[in-house]
């Protein structure tokens, strides 16, 4: 505990930066941009130290910091990362820098924009490192506010509708999760333990399977909305299409990962028996999401919407991997989360590039762009390949691992999911064909400038990452091995320990539901 | 001694009349009087209980309820005067309570 508080530093540095930002006069827009870039860049550099100093052999929490916060309730400021969160943290700090660069062209209310952006970074990092349920919940909710403003103020024409939908959807889910968190807290006390919201302590609490069933349902709802899983995905296309470019990138790159991260960190290890009970259902829903997302993406005539629906499909893969409940599947799911952040993030950046020039995203408005913007076309093609899982690029590794894991658990699910891969190739390549090839017949498209230096500046790192993660995945997977092994081991052990606790009768869950209505006065 | 039930019954009936008045009438001054009627009913209940329990508390309640009634009447009538000054239209003395 005597080490440098890396995690707190990177989390609160953006907040501090935001406070300083308030002092910079509104008129000096250049200064505001430069300051924000500096803050995110420094945060990223410091976060690299996490990567260097992270011990891959250790499966538990590292860089732990702990301080009592509301002692009487057992709430503490308790943070730490393991192999699951390490890469997500780095992805967040990395994408933040990219996003600030891509937002250079924002001219409306620059100060507020950058302010919300920095606050958002603090929120995201805080949620990823929290090991206390209340602390997590606070960051989780606080994250919504800046995102809401980013969509609502700097978004497209239907931004207000999209922003409110985004907020309310996520809020409903997370409030029910709050009830479950509180219930968990009391079940822990009832079991004779000291009152605590400490996640690692709560991992050790063995609950009867029928109790787990309900608790998992509440957590699952919150995270499934965030992921988003079909059929709770409807907020996503609206939010994505209306958000400004950087907003979409962060939304796809980090916020959606919060959902899968939530499953890995909270819902699954806390309630393993419920996971087992829900797994078939979740896998079916995941597969439906893969195919549904792909089919809907295919018929879109707006590039950004297409990418948004492809997200639904991709995250279906991630969920399929997680609920395969074996090493390959879970690791693939985690890896695919990172991939999705890079490739979909890059796709949104690319869509932003063309939108800035033409102020339209309709596929029909383009055609033959490869002639006018050759460099742009090349980058776009690379990222497309990464998104559809071409070997040698990052998407392949994740999808392969997921399919392997899914195959081991359910051959049928794997087969259906495979059709999703094929469909993805179909809609992406078809879109590329319509946009970049064919005759350059639209007058407005002929004089389009190719990538600028700034655009190269934020696209090159993304392309590099796509290749790195595809060619040498070992860099990344190695750090997660120990954590995930421990994760699965604990998962199985806890499942066995809980199984015998209380066998749920045929209608036990119904009974529980009824008992909850009027508890009478049975205080403990 | 008057049986407990008789006085309390009378008190309940008067209280009910007051309640009906507040809910049904619309003239502001009549509303005020209906509230006074309710308070009188309550006073009767206190006196009855005090008498039957040989307890002084009920009588003190009556004393204080009257104080409150006086203060309420003063402020209430001041509000009524205010209301009259503010609007001089027709039906100025009426108000609908069960709206909104």
């Amino acid at each position, binding site marked *: 505990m005597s080490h440098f508080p890396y995690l707190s530093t990177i989390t609160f540095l953006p907040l501090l930066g935001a406070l300083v930002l308030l002092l910079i006069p509104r008129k000096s827009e250049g200064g505001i941009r430069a300051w924000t870039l500096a803050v995110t860049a420094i945060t990223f550099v410091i976060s690299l130290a996490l990567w260097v100093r992270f011990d891959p052999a250790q499966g538990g929490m590292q860089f732990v910091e702990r301080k009592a916060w509301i002692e009487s309730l057992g709430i503490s400021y308790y943070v730490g990362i393991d192999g699951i969160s390490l890469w997500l943290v780095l992805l967040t700090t990395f994408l933040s820098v990219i996003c600030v660069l891509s937002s250079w062209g924002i001219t409306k209310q620059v100060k507020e924009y950058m302010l919300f952006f920095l606050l958002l970074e603090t929120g995201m990092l805080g949620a990823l490192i929290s090991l206390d349920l209340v602390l997590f919940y606070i960051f989780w909710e606080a994250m919504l506010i800046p995102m809401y403003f980013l969509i609502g103020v700097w978004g497209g024409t239907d931004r207000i509708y999209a*922003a409110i939908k985004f907020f309310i959807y996520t809020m*409903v889910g997370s409030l029910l999760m709050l009830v479950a968190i509180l219930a968990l807290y009391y079940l822990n006390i009832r079991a004779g333990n000291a009152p605590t919201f400490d996640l690692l302590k709560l991992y050790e609490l063995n609950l009867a399977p029928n109790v787990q069933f309900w608790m998992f349902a509440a957590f699952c709802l919150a995270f499934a909305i965030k992921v988003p899983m079909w059929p709770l995905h409807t907020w996503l296309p609206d939010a994505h299409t209306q958000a400004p470019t950087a907003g979409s990138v962060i939304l796809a790159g980090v916020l959606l990962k919060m959902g899968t991260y939530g499953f890995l960190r909270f819902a699954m290890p806390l309630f393993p028996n419920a996971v087992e009970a829900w797994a078939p259902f979740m896998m079916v829903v995941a597969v439906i999401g893969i195919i549904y997302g792909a089919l809907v993406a295919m018929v879109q005539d707006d590039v950004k919407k297409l990418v948004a629906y492809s997200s639904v499909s991709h995250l279906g893969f991630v969920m399929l991997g997680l609920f395969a409940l074996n090493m390959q599947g879970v690791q693939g799911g985690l890896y695919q989360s990172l991939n999705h952040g890079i490739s979909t993030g890059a796709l949104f950046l690319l869509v932003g590039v063309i939108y800035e020039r033409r102020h339209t995203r309709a596929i029909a408005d383009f055609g033959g762009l490869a002639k006018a913007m050759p460099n742009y076309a090349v980058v776009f093609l690379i990222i497309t390949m990464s998104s559809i899982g071409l070997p040698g690029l990052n998407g392949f590794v994740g999808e392969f691992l997921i399919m392997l894991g899914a195959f081991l658990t359910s051959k049928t699910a794997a087969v259906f999911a495979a059709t999703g891969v094929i469909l993805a190739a179909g809609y992406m390549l078809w879109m590329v064909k319509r946009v970049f090839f064919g005759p350059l017949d639209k007058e407005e498209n002929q004089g389009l400038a190719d990538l600028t230096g700034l655009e190269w500046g934020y696209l090159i790192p993304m392309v590099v990452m796509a290749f790195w993660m595809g060619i040498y995945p070992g860099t990344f997977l190695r750090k997660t091995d120990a954590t995930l092994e421990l994760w699965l081991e604990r998962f199985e052990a806890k499942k066995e320990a809980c199984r015998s606790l209380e066998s749920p009768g045929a209608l036990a869950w119904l009974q529980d539901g009824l008992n909850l209505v009027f508890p009478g006065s049975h205080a403990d | 001694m008057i049986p407990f039930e008789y006085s309390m019954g009378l008190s309940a009936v008067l209280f009910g009349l007051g309640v009906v008045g507040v809910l049904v009438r619309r003239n502001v001054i009549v509303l005020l009087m209906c509230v006074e009627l309710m308070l009188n009913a309550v006073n009767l209940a206190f006196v009855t209980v005090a008498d039957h329990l040989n307890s002084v508390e009920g009588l003190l309640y009556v004393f204080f309820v009257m104080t409150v009634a006086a203060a309420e009447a003063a402020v209430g009538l*001041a509000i009524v005067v205010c209301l009259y000054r503010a609007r001089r239209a027709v039906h100025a003395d009426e108000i609908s309570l069960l709206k*909104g």
Partner: protein
Amino acid sequence: MTFSMADMRLLTPHLVITAAALLVLLAEAVSPGRRKGYLPYLGIAGIVVAAFTTPGLFGPARSGFSGMLAGDAFAAFVYFILYAVGALTLLVSDAYLRDEGRDHAEYYALVLLALVGMMLMAGATHLMSVFLALETMSIAIYALAGFFRDERSAEASFKYFILGAFSSGFLLYGIALLYGACGTTEIQGILDAFASNRALAGSPMALAGVGLVTVGFAFKVAAVPFHMWTPDAYQGAPTSVTAFMATGVKAAAFAAVLRVFFVAFQTLHVDWSGVLWVLALLTMTLGNLTAIAQTDVKRMLAYSSIAHAGYILVGVVAGTPEAGAGILYYLLAYAFMNIGAFACLIMVGRKGHENTELDAFAGLGFKFPALGLAMSLFMFSMAGIPPTAGFIGKFLIFKAAVHQGYYWLTIFGVLNSAASVYYYLRVIVTMYFKPEPDTPVVEGLRAGPSMALATILAGLGVLYFGIVPGGLVDLAEQALRYLV
């Protein structure tokens, strides 16, 4: 039987504030010319002095005046909530009343006297004192609500007056029945009567008494279906008075509810919790659903205050010290965020025009960044989004409800909370996402130094108690430990 200096010690803060009220009245009478800008600050000085003389924040419970007044940590905690409410209200009123041309000593004196009534409600341990304190508070508020003397103000005042007097009738009849059933109306005495005589808990007279007392209090805290006076009274009253009513009256009434239900009716929890369960659900749901339909921010806040009463009732239903502590915390948080929000409303208005319809807020977020920031903060806090005091308040109350197994009520509570997000966000949406109309409704802000100070204090309170709630939670729990 006679009183002593120890008794007077418990009454000191009340006496100080009463003296301040008299001083304010006197000062205007003798002050030369028209200079009376210092009057509210005289009142605030009184409140500050009272705060220093408040006994019993720590240490065991004391009681004085033959068991009529408590000097316990519970009372002290509520006193401090009320000091905050009173001081913020006076700060907010200053520039507002001057602008409206109604800055009279009577106003400040009435605020202070109402404050005394509220404090006595929180400290009273005998239903007779509770009743008298409640009336002191209410009569002062009736006069304050009508203080602008225009039609809307007078109508609001009258409506509040009649339904307030009406509900007092119910409360009193309830007290009379309890008196008949228990032979006393001292809170501890009622508890003892119920505890010593098991059969009493089933006596129809006692139950009818509890029921009527519940109705009486339900009116005061604006619980559905006894809420119909709220929207008109809140909307018609001067905005500063609305803030005072929504926070101070609520704090005092709930303090009395806690004492009466948690102590006197402790053994009857099975009986009243079911009724309050339904009331809480109705109050939250109706308050929120009607708030959604409003297009006037002031009226929206009136309905939302009904919804907030509903959340607090969830805590009352739970009926444990833990829940009581949550309620106290919530009341404090609510005081800060609500007065802050109303201060923002005052600022957008100008003499004779309140400008509280939602459309008036279009584009104000960027036009007046500080106002936008403050209003957003208060809206987020009311919606219960961290890291604000409103979140911690809801968290504590729902935590206590879950602890007692009221899962469904809690789930309804959080769903309501999610629904309320919609209309709170709508204010922010209008402020930031909508462009200002070509002919701006709000040209400038009615903000003086005192208004700015009040808003900043309220904002800091919301943030501070949202980020470092620890100490206050401990204090609230301690307060309840001595109560129950």
